[in-house]
């Protein structure tokens, strides 16, 4: 930030989206997903992107998202045609006993893991090629297969090294993504290396490792009272370490993005990110209490004068009532979780990143020229079908 302020041409990125409006429209969208059996989610996604993009203003001009729900729908249908054979293969494998089945499963899961990287890259391509700023389109080049291969091999190494190789993987993937990103005819570059995030990562890693080590130590020495409290301590310490590291990684990696002479300066405070997670947890706690009382009330009504237990009994002995109870509870829980995490965590993250960013030397972006159109729809469909969609 200091560099940004000394420089007279640093332009702030601002995010002006009101959270209540976002929540209201998202809520309406979720309700419409019920009668459309989920089809409406493509329209919800398009709404969200339009909202985020158009409220993100860089040097006075907002981003514009030009993608449509129809493109997402078509992409999803194409992805299904691709995944159906894989799905049937998984089913047939599940019928096989012993070694053949196990090897088959490992192979299919490995392929899926590889494909997640492919889908992430294609999804990013879809979003970037539908993003305009000052009338100029972004784009992503490079190869999704090359990206997925890197990600796959790095992730194996990270597992083998118990996570110690993570900064190398992170830097490699960020570099591949950003070095292949274009704004018009200008190529983005990425100056981060593993050293950029090594400090915060290994500090967070040490906190988690030491606390896990302590728990094991307590277990060995047989101090049972302390041992019972240990998991709580590990979750709290681990959570804090995770939030600290995530804010530092984003701060340093985003700040390593260059676009010719222009560059990004991002500052994300760990305590702001922690506050969001705390808020998310508290809202959940509140909802759980409300749900408890609502559930008890329903059972009391169903049980009539005989009380709650009779209610449970009457619901459990009626086939349709119990199915409605179970499916309704499931839809409510999944819906509420998704809605809340989108409104609190995803929204909060976008706000932190956008609101904490500056573009230094923004005037150097005045002569970027547009390049030809690129209209791929398939990529985003894969991301949806693998559940790796981001924003």
């Amino acid at each position: 930030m200091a560099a940004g302020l000394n420089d007279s041409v640093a332009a702030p990125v601002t995010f002006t989206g009101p959270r209540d409006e976002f929540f209201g429209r998202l809520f309406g969208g979720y309700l419409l997903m019920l009668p459309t059996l989920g089809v409406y989610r493509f329209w919800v996604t398009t709404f969200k992107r339009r909202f985020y993009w158009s409220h993100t203003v860089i040097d006075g001009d907002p981003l514009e998202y030009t993608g449509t729900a129809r493109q997402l729908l078509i992409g999803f249908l194409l992805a299904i045609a691709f995944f159906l054979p894989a799905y049937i293969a998984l089913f047939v494998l599940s019928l096989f006993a012993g070694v053949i089945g196990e090897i088959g499963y490992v192979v299919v899961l490995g392929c899926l893991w590889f494909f997640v990287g492919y889908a992430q890259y294609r999804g990013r391509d879809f979003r970037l090629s539908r993003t305009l700023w000052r009338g100029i389109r972004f784009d992503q080049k490079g190869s999704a297969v090359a990206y997925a291969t890197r990600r796959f091999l790095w992730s194996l190494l990270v597992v083998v090294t118990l996570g110690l190789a993570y900064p190398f993987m992170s830097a490699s993937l960020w570099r591949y993504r950003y070095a292949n990103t274009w704004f018009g005819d200008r190529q983005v570059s990425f100056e981060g290396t593993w050293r950029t995030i090594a400090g915060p990562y290994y500090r967070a890693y040490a906190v988690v490792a030491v606390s896990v080590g302590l728990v094991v130590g307590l277990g060995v020495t047989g101090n049972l009272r302390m041992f019972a409290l240990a998991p709580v301590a590990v979750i709290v310490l681990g959570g804090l370490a995770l939030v600290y590291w995530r804010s530092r990684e984003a701060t340093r990696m985003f700040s390593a993005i260059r676009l010719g002479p222009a560059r990004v300066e991002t500052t994300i405070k760990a305590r702001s990110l922690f506050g969001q997670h705390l808020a998310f947890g508290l809202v959940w706690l509140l909802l759980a209490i409300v749900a408890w009382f609502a559930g008890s009330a329903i059972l009391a009504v169903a049980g009539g004068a005989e009380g709650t237990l009779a209610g449970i009994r009457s619901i459990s002995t009626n086939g349709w009532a119990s199915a409605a109870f179970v499916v309704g509870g499931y839809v409510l829980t999944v819906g509420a979780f998704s809605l809340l995490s989108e409104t609190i965590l995803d929204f909060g993250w976008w706000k932190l990143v956008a609101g904490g960013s500056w573009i230094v030397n923004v005037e150097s972006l005045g002569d970027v020229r547009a390049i030809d159109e690129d209209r791929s729809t398939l990529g985003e469909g894969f991301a949806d079908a693998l559940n790796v969609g981001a924003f």
Partner: protein
Amino acid sequence: MNPLARYHDGRVSAARDVTFAITRDTVTPEIIIADGETHDVIDRWPIDDAFEVHGLANRLRLGARGRPDGARLSLTGAPLVEATRKLLPALKNQQANERREQRRLIGIASGALFSLVAAYVFGIPLLARALVPSIPPEWESQLGEATLAQIDQIIGYQGQVTFCDEDPDSLANRAIDRFARTVLADAGSSFTPDVKVVAAYIPNAFALPGGHSYYFSALLEQTETADEFAGVLAHELGHVHHRHGLDGLISTSATGLLVGFVLGDMTGLSVAGGLGAALIDTRFSREAEHEADAFAGAAGARYGFDPAALATLIERVAGDNEAGRFFQVFSTHPLTVERRVALEQLPKPPPGLRAFSDEEWTAIKLMCDRFS
């Protein structure tokens, strides 16, 4: 003085402050865009080519056909936006058309999905039934063997289950084996049963595809009569005979696919997807329960036990504690009112006929005593 706006030409990333005017009296009405300072005309958009793109409230963003995709004229301020909209009435029609088009698309897509769900609800049970007979029983037995190892891993200690009575030639084991073999053989089943009475804390009994069946010591402890025991066993063998395990596997896969369609996650790797599929299948497994009950009823009439005793036992186990009652909602074989009625309407056994002799039942009842 013409109003001010922001303009991008879609070719170069420069942002220009411009003024614009809308002429309606010429042959082709136009939006004339001029530089804000020099007032030189930059571009002229025929108003029929102009279209609105998404923007914030109190803003109007226009693009134009025949211009670069990124060409934009952007106006800010409610009075200006309103006045401009009035001069460009075509925008309203475009928006209405667009909205109609979107609604049509949502309608078609949801309709297609609804027919898919209908095909699933009515078609998959039929499909599974049609497929199951064409899958060789040997294959199903192999599937059962594969599951067997996993089950033993879960309920046993270090992968080894503890048999209540290890001697296969004991009175109890011989009686159980005789009963199970006769019931399946007389039904014309191609499977050979293998009933294992094992030590476990959960009151439960179940059958795997191919004939391996389990009866847990905790359930035997609560089983009070030979009729209850024979009822449960015959019910589980009914699942084996009707090949419900395989049937369920096919149906579950189809449900996973359907939930994948609705939630978007085709792989079912997410918790939401997997849980949803499992819950929907809970509903559809009830038909299989009725079939297994009917099988037990037929066996009861032949070998002499009252199938309604099955209901008595389930009620006793479920009524044992409040949690048990609650979890019946999630159970794969809950005792619904309909099911109890159906069980009681099954034919009663002819008098004098008994599935197990008194000595046999006493031996079975005492099998797991060392674990209680």
